[in-house]
């Protein structure tokens, strides 16, 4: 089945009512959606952890979804929250390969663009986005990122700190 807004909302309503079969289907679809969603902004090495953390958060905060509102922006807000939280924790990683198959369903392009991590990231000042991208996503050291960008090491650290703080404040903004 395709993870579209209407189906996910219906499954979520049933899950809130205690329907385990619907919940299993919902979580499986959410898993797929989250893998695609995080794809470009998360190192492959931590993708599984982040998807699992987000599913766990979804489970714990099931009651916070309102059936009168769309499901995917709710899931995206939780996903962004977990992503920013992980950005805070991760400084280094070994792999920098990015998965290639990262597309959203055509009919949901507008929604996907609005709630994507890219739209959040694009709101950061360029220097802050670049510093986070290099150190926290691509896994370079602070020194390597400094050399590559021409910024001093302390400026790289400051930009990461400010950028992550700004992302935290913007999680629900489109």
């Amino acid at each position: 089945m395709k993870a579209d807004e209407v189906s996910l909302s219906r499954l979520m309503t049933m899950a809130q009512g205690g329907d385990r079969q619907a919940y299993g289907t919902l979580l499986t679809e959410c898993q797929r959606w989250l893998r695609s969603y995080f794809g470009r902004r998360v190192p492959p090495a931590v993708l599984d952890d982040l998807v699992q953390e987000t599913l766990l958060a979804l489970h714990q905060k099931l009651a916070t979804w309102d059936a009168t509102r769309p499901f995917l922006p709710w899931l995206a807000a939780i996903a962004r929250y977990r992503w920013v939280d992980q950005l805070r924790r991760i400084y280094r990683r070994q792999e920098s390969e990015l998965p290639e198959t990262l597309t959203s369903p055509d009919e949901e392009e507008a929604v996907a663009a609005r709630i994507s991590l890219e739209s959040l990231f694009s709101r950061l000042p360029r220097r802050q986005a670049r510093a986070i991208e290099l150190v926290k996503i691509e896994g370079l050291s602070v020194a390597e990122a400094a050399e590559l960008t021409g910024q001093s090491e302390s400026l790289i650290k400051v930009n990461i700190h400010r950028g992550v703080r700004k992302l935290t404040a913007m999680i629900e903004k489109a």
Partner: protein
Amino acid sequence: MTQSTDSLIAQLVDGLEPVRPMRASEGFAVAFAALGLSLAAVVLIADVRPDVISALQQPVFLLSAGLFLLLGLASSAAVVAMARPQVGSEHSGWIWAAAMAALLPVAAVIVALADTSAVLARSAAISGSDCLLAASGLGLLTFAALTWWLRRGAPTSPDRAGLVTGIAAGSFGIFAYSFNCTYSDIVHIGLWHSAAVATCAMIGRLVVPHLIRW
């Protein structure tokens, strides 16, 4: 996490219990209950000012109490909304209410600078600190109620949620205490009553995020 995502999903499905979705109306009810308790506490413990009827006809009292009530309502509404995550939500209505309430300290400073002797004498530091302490104490009710609401929910901006919780608590606290405070001059209200809101906002910003992270 080392387990596979499929086995995590199986565990989560096994642990599923029916949940009752959070309703915004419940959040508002909690906030109103806290406001009601604050007013009841003023009536039962601190006593209503003896000239309350004539105070209700004084523009400064009416405007300031109204502004703090509106700020409390707008902030509470924002906190209620913040508990339910949603990309695209702004929660910025409280900022306008805060901007309007900020006119009170601005007006207080202008008046105080123009008439330093008589007005400042009436705004004695001791009675001012009474207002600050009492309003902060009364604000604890709103503070606890909204923090409980946020803990039930999933606020994605804990720092901002903490700040706005503090503003709501301080605003409801000083609104309730206005019915006890016998000062109705703009300098006292603009400085001390606004300081109560600012103090609660600061406490909320510092304390609440630690209580609501998830």
